[in-house]
């Protein structure tokens, strides 16, 4: 799903420093935040919103669509399972460095409750001009402008750069979809492509991948059948193999996850691949012109 301003958002960890800062930013931008969670401050008010002991308790009190987690790694599993059991449609998990066994249990809880998890280790989702959920600079109008391009990124910082490049070239965005930098994420690049392909306001998609894993190869299979133009950039061409490049997911071991295999798979699927992010708007324009012709 794409976040909309009518979606009711719960913030887990709302009273912390980052939870407070980003909740305010989300409210100011237009996101409908309806409450927060902190078991130690249940019953109080924060930023004019009710604070609950758990997401399940919040859901008993009011309707919820999305939960966003400002929760430290060791507490993330319990919080995510709580959100899944509360019956939200989507959990946005920003936390990085959650133990992998916990992540697997989170995904199991999501599957059994029919909940979509975005992340872990995502920077969140932006619907420019409407709302955002997470830790993206949606409010910076140099970076994000309403428009017709969907952007998918494993990395928040690269997603910011690419959105900036688009805005600088006159392309606004219909939605930014941060899928996350972890090896086991709930919504992968292929899922995000599917979501943006189904979205009527999206005319073309930019896919920002990186080395490691097989997300780009899998996304390429789906892109091959899409009629909307897809342009990709893959970070990590100059990165040495065998080294974890910050993201737990960004490591090349053997031939698996290497730049060349990702680029070849995308190009074979008809996706134009940019060498540097500044080429993305040029390739996008070519793709859209070809489609119009």
């Amino acid at each position: 799903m794409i976040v909309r301003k009518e979606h009711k958002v719960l913030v887990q960890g709302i009273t912390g420093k980052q939870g407070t800062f980003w909740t305010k930013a989300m409210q100011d931008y237009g996101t409908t935040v309806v409450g927060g969670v902190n078991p130690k401050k249940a019953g109080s008010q924060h930023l004019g919103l009710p604070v609950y002991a758990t997401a399940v308790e919040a859901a008993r009190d009011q309707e919820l669509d999305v939960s966003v987690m400002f929760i430290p790694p060791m507490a993330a599993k319990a919080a995510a399972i709580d959100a899944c059991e509360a019956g939200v449609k989507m959990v946005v998990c920003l936390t990085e460095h959650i133990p992998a066994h916990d992540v697997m249990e989170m995904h199991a809880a999501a599957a059994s409750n029919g909940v979509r998890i975005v992340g872990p280790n995502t920077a969140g989702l932006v619907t420019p001009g409407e709302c955002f959920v997470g830790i993206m600079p949606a409010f910076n109008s140099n970076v994000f402008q309403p428009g017709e391009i969907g952007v998918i990124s494993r990395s928040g910082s690269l997603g910011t750069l690419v959105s900036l490049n688009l805005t600088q070239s006159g392309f606004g965005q219909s939605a930014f979809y941060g899928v996350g930098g972890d090896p086991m994420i709930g919504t992968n690049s292929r899922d995000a492509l599917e979501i943006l392909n189904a979205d009527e306001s999206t005319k073309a998609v930019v896919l920002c991948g990186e080395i490691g894993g097989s997300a780009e190869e899998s996304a390429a299979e789906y892109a091959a059948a899409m009629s909307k133009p897809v342009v990709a950039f893959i970070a990590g061409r100059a990165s040495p193999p065998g080294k974890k490049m910050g993201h737990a997911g960004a490591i090349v071991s053997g031939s698996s996850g290497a730049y060349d295999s990702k680029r070849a798979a995308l190009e074979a699927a008809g996706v134009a691949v940019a060498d540097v992010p500044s080429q993305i708007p040029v390739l996008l324009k070519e793709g859209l012109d070809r489609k119009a012709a």
Partner: protein
Amino acid sequence: MNFEEYRAKPLLVKSGIAVPDSDLASDAATAKAIAERIGNCVVKAQVPTGKRGKAGGIKLASSPDEAKAHAEAIIGMEIDGHRVEKVLIEAQVPIAKELYAAVLNDALSKNPMVLFSMMGGMDVEEVAETDPDAMRKIPVEITKGFDLAAARRALEGCGLAEAEQAVADVLVRLYQAYRELDAELLEINPLVLTSDDRVIALDCKLTIDDSASPRQADIAEQAAPEIMTELERKAQAAGLKYIALGGSVGVLANGAGLTMTTMDAITHYGGKPANFLEIGGEAYTKAKIALSILLENTDIRSLLVNFCGAFARTDVMTEGLVAAWKELAPDIPIFFTIHGTGEEEAVKIVKEQLGIEPFDLMDDAVRAAVTAAAEAA
């Protein structure tokens, strides 16, 4: 984090999996003394890599003097970048059959996976590649676990005969150990059936999830030291990830994706990145220590700062960086491109305090840094 065999095996024993009698030696005389106690033995290099056998780091000895000679040859050897400091002197067992067993995190199913093969030993990777059917892959649902019934189903038709029950028991214990240890990979290769009907783990490979180290603190302390340069170690101590890349254009950016992209752009425009170093996420307040680590690399001829703030506030990063830059006063040119959260304030700091105009386009900043590095070379 990875563990040497002599650290991993006691963890198997704790889970009820049998291993041969053994002891650790860091010199040849001790190796001989251990061999005198345990008889016919194997001398095994203790390094966290799977290439020990092929590199000559594992030798059979049928006398204490032979064990001593092997220990002398093996200690000090370099295997896959690791210097051998210790050898494990382990009792030989009568091998009837070599099997393979492992449990790992499967990214595709987002669940654990148990692996088993009747064809264990040094060439198991080739076996798995040339004859995929020889490697059984058993998906496990993490919330359901892996019990004896599941293990017996997994082994059905393997031809283990009377040993099936005992091997199934080992698989269950291996899975339990994997869960308790927060392992990414727990592997026994070979798992041997002996001629006197025992099931024994002859080797053990263990990788524990770094993110789990807060709750695996005791075991994490025993992890094998990673091979890294002094600077990489210093960065790690400061909570930063630094990788030396050998070029002349220094890179400081926030976020792994943006940093890799910056390195790619430097390469695209004909330069060579000097390093990977990012101060994104929770590390965005560490600009000063990051800069001092960068500048210890004497091959740097120019520095490129690329901030694209989302969670990481560019004003906070820039403030720390500019203060450190003024304090350290390095004799190289610096180039900025700054966007995202806190951008206006960050640009103002750079202009007012350094008298430098940040580039609006990343490509322009990259080209300038590459040109400056080439001119200084």
